[in-house]
């Protein structure tokens, strides 16, 4: 039945080459943990992506209850955590995933570093990887403010002081991030917008570039 549906569509749109090109590739022996167990280090990139997908999905669901407003943000997080079924789980996925994604990205970077995979012709992918790293840091920084509790507020306060310490442009960067001269209502809406729209958009574009380059250049050879 399913096969017939697939064939019916494939006859009209010729979709087989599309997914073949994306998915139908042999894994070289030196990156396959079934051959050499130590090759599990090659999984860290994929695990980073897996957790990124969890972040995006759990984040999308959190926005069903979350309100980016200084009077209601904390209450809405408290409500979704304690009153909504599986709230603790969904928020927990997002909360712990935010740290785990950075850990995985760090391990992936170590693998790339110690296998020398950043060398020619893959320099550009190292640069894109670094951009992904900064976008992730940005997501962590902006997301951390959203629950609007004391920890969130003061962590952001410290972050703003760090931004302010940059010579010459620091004070402007801080004010632009804050959306005013205090951390308040306009900071929360700004951080929310950056957290759920701007940075995820940038992240997806960069991940696309990352993966296209991997496909073009293949995985780097054995040591």
């Amino acid at each position, binding site marked *: 039945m399913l096969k017939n549906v697939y064939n019916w569509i494939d006859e009209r749109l010729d979709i087989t080459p599309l997914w073949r090109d994306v998915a139908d590739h042999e894994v070289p022996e030196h990156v396959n943990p079934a051959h050499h167990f130590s090759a599990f280090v090659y999984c860290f990139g994929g695990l980073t992506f897996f957790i990124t997908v969890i972040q995006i999905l759990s984040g999308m669901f959190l926005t069903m209850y979350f309100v980016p407003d*200084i009077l209601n943000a904390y209450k809405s997080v408290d409500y979704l955590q304690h009153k909504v079924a599986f709230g603790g789980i969904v928020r927990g996925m997002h909360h712990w995933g935010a740290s785990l994604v950075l850990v995985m990205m760090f391990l992936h970077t170590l693998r790339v570093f110690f296998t020398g995979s950043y060398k020619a012709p893959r320099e550009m992918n190292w640069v894109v990887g670094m951009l992904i790293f900064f976008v992730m840091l940005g997501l962590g920084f902006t997301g951390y403010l959203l629950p609007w509790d004391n920890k969130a507020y*003061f962590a952001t*306060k*410290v972050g703003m002081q760090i931004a302010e310490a940059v010579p010459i442009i620091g004070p*402007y960067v801080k*004010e*632009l991030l*804050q*959306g*005013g*001269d*205090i951390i*308040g*209502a*306009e900071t929360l809406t700004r951080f929310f917008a950056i957290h759920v729209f701007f940075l995820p958009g940038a992240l997806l574009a960069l991940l696309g570039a990352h993966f296209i380059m991997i496909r073009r250049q293949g995985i780097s050879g054995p040591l």
Partner: protein
Amino acid sequence: MSNHDQEKNHRPVKRNEMSRRQFLSYTLGGATAFMAAGVTLPMIRFAVDPILKKKSESTWVKVVEEAKVTNEPQEFKFNIHQIDGWYVSDPEQTAWITKDEQGNYFALSPVCKHLGCTIGWNTEKNNEYVCPCHGAHYTMDGKNLSVAPKPLDEYDLKVESGWIYLGPIKANTRV
């Protein structure tokens, strides 16, 4: 016709006109740039509005009668009018106000210059401001003695008909 004339006529004409293709690509490029700017400029101006908006100048707040301030720092509370986007509120502020030997009043901010905890006066009975978080110490003038990298901030202060008024926070002027 002489040879000379002929040479003159055959000299290739250098035309400074734009080719049709060039004209069209400039026009297309210009129109594209115009449309792109028309789309993005409003959004950029929208996003940077907070740094371009005129700051509401802060006003003086009446805090305490002159007579109540002593040579020993005391904590006074007052409310400032705060406009945060669409939220208008009157949050409470704290100042440590002291009269120095010359009879001048000064008001210090209670925010520790290390990482922003709230300092207290004489909590260790040594006539210093002390921060409970990581042990910063300050003199009565707010001079940083340990841990904190800078002296305590100061409030602008004025005295008018027996009352002390406080203004915006500024860097310490006493040390």
